[in-house]
């Protein structure tokens, strides 16, 4: 029996959700290659739903509707798929988290690795000059000036980015520790990053955010320290241009005008 004949036999188990996750993936890959298999899966999915419709309907608990209505009012919808996948519609979409992601979010994604590589190849002379320049600049810390109001503003800005119709996300691991999720909206020209478990830096150092354009020109987008709570949320200053790479470097306290170190994380926005 050939491989595809063997895979074809899985159609029943597939529509009944009886495959293991790796098998499901392999089968979905196979579906992309076989018109016949797609047709079979479509009809068998309808059949599975017919079995489902034979189940007695039960009204859900009364409070659920109100909770959901409240929840959706604050939940962004996914951007439509640009290129429709070959897998039939009957196949359920991915989970809530995954469906919201547009950029593949393996950490670090190949694109993120490419973006980081682009930074590494910046001319050494530029970096040295930048390093020299920042020595002269001693910044103060910007801790807790506006307090609660700032936090509130940040939360509202962040929600706006997530809620934008063209909102996109990308996740990547942070070298040195932590997991970063960048979220942006090209329409709003804004972006933010949410990082879990970002290590605290020693004295005299700060994290700095950057927009780097397609010509590898870096524009500073704010400095910040790791939150003590475990989740660091930062909005990038300035305006994002579609195609910009978003990144973070570790800089001397006060920040730099140009990156002086290799990025600890970088993701392309397109």
């Amino acid at each position: 029996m050939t491989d595809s004949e063997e895979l074809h036999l899985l159609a029943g188990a597939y529509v009944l959700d009886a495959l293991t996750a790796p098998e499901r993936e392999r089968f979905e890959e196979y579906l992309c290659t076989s018109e016949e298999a797609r047709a079979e899966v479509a009809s068998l999915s309808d059949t599975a739903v017919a079995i489902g419709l034979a189940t007695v309907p039960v009204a859900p608990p009364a409070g659920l509707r109100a909770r959901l209505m409240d929840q959706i009012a604050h939940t962004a919808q996914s951007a439509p798929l640009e290129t429709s996948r070959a897998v039939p519609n009957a196949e359920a979409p991915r989970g809530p988290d995954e469906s919201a992601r547009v950029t593949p979010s393996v950490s670090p994604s190949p694109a993120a690795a490419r973006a980081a590589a682009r930074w590494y190849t910046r001319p050494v002379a530029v970096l040295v000059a930048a390093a020299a320049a920042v020595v002269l600049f001693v910044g103060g810390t910007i801790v807790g000036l506006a307090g609660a109001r700032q936090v509130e503003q940040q939360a509202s800005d962040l929600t706006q980015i997530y809620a934008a119709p063209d909102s996109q996300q990308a996740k990547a691991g942070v070298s040195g520790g932590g997991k970063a999720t960048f979220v942006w909206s090209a329409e709003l020209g804004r972006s933010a990053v949410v990082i879990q478990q970002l290590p605290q830096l020693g004295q005299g150092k700060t994290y700095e955010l950057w927009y780097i354009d397609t010509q590898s020109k870096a524009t500073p987008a704010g400095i910040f320290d790791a939150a003590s709570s475990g989740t660091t949320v930062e909005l990038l200053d300035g305006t994002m241009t579609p195609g910009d790479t978003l990144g973070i470097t570790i800089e001397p306290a006060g920040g730099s005008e140009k990156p002086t170190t290799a990025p600890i994380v970088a993701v392309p926005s397109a």
Partner: protein
Amino acid sequence: MLRLVPSETDRPEDFESTGKPATKESLLARVAEGDQEAFGELYDQISPRVFGLIRRLLVDHAQSEEVTQEVFLEIWQSATRYQPSRGGATTWILTMAHRRAVDRIRSSQSGRDRDVKIGIRDYVAEYDNVAETVETTIENERVKEALSQLTELQRQAVTLAYYGGYSHSEVAAMLSVPIGTVKTRLRDGMIRLRDELGVAS
């Protein structure tokens, strides 16, 4: 003498989506545009189906409520990706509900008694009781009828997988047959059901 007899072949189509013209589909299209009211309407129409199916699989009431909430949130988020050309809204939603319920079972195996013997007794018995214990709807009559056309092994395998949320290897262990046999029976059983139910694709 020649008499005209009404055709018996027009069986009522009862896949809710195809029977009534595009109600859920059009609601879903409005949901995709961020229409919260349409979402509420869609919820009112289909949530008993979703909750009923999920509770059938998970049994536990609180977990069923959680998964139902997840599914509706997912409907809200991914309505933008629903393509009517590829199937009815009911199919899309119940397929999602089934998969999420199965995901929950797999992620919390310990949360439920997965004992093989108890499992098979319960699920097969439950199938046998369907007609006596529930309000008989057309689809459930038809499904019961169609299931009865399957071989014993096909029927048990399909029932355990769909209503029990068991994987093919679990089904194989429960029925003491090789995994390859279960895979084959799940497919030919579903094909037989499809043909019995007159599901066109």
